[in-house]
């Protein structure tokens, strides 16, 4: 039980996927302009990351490993992720039009989020079992959401503040992200997993 908790803490804070491992930076910079879109993106990512983490674990353990095809893992994972995303999009669209409208374009966009593939591959490196894979994916998504929402909230404030001209726009965004990464480095040593 403790180790499961540790996995969550580790992925959310200590080894945060965005700020410490630098995965999924494109949506981090891209959709953090508004808090509302950031929340939509977070929701969609949480959904997809957890699901794809599980599916790629299953595909690896029950298909690739028995057949000695470990070298196919990257391409298989990409395939699995793309299908999972497409499938969820269809299901969500049918079952919950409201959720579909909230997630909107972000759902298919997540396919290209490198954190998704990163989680799938890191699962193997860490020799995670099934439950651990679920938690690892979920934790990574929570960490991503946390940072994305914080960052979006900050950028909304920065947008109305008096930033020196050379720093306006993306520049101050990068500076802010860097400072956030520094702050998250402070969690190093909190737990060791």
């Amino acid at each position, binding site marked *: 039980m403790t180790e499961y908790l540790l996995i969550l803490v580790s992925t959310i804070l200590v080894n945060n996927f965005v700020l410490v491992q630098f995965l999924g930076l494109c949506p981090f910079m891209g959709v953090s302009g508004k808090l509302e879109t950031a929340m939509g993106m977070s929701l969609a990512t949480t959904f997809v990351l957890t699901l794809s983490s599980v599916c790629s674990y299953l595909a690896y353990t029950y298909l690739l490993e028995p057949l000695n095809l470990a070298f196919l893992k990257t391409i298989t994972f990409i395939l699995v992720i793309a299908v999972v995303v497409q499938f969820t999009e269809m299901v969500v669209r*049918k079952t919950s039009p409201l959720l579909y409208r909230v997630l909107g374009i972000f759902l298919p966009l997540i396919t290209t989020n490198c954190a998704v593939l990163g989680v799938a591959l890191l699962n193997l490196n860490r020799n995670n079992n099934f439950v651990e894979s679920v938690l690892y994916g979920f934790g990574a998504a929570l960490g991503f959401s946390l940072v994305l929402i914080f960052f979006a909230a900050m950028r909304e404030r920065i947008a109305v503040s008096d930033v020196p001209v050379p720093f306006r726009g993306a520049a101050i965004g990068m500076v802010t992200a860097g400072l956030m990464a520094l702050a998250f480095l402070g969690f190093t040593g909190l737990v060791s997993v």
Partner: protein
Amino acid sequence: MWTSIIIAVGVLLGLAAVFGALLGFAAERFKVEGNPLVDQIDALLPQTQCGQCGFPGCRPYAEAINNGAAINKCPPGGEATINALADLLDVEPQPLDSEHGAAQAKRVAVIREDECIGCTKCIQACPVDAILGSAKHMHTVIESECTGCDLCVEPCPVDCIDMIVIEPDIHSWTWAPPVVKGAVPGEAPGSRLIATDSEAKTHEESLL
């Protein structure tokens, strides 16, 4: 060596086939209802929400057209709308159904303000909220919002609302729209000098 390559290719092919089948099944199983055609028809209608077609507004009429209603019931859109609809639905264009009113040049409602008694009846009738005013105060029409649908004329108890034809001035004048194939017979091309708003719009789009 060769066996492992064949196995690898086979596994990937199998995976792709399974996933393809899954997605194909999902596309059928979770097909979304709601006809995109209605949206397209709705986009062609003039959005006056006047109800002259006998339906409560443009969207309901679009749905009715989708279900087989005649396309010639929209006087504000006139011939241009009918032609566009005929084009979209791939049917023969028909002359405007005179039962629902004749096509007219673009008009706006104007309230003779010194006669207005402030009864708010026209405000309630206006489908696009283009009339401004409150009880026992003078009302006026926001000209840019008015769709010229006539609906406010009828309820006015003192008949102080005029429908004024907008004369084209230097800002709003456009060329007479090009003659569309299958145009209404009996009307010489360019016989109407004043284009309706929707015609002007199609003309602008055709220039782009």
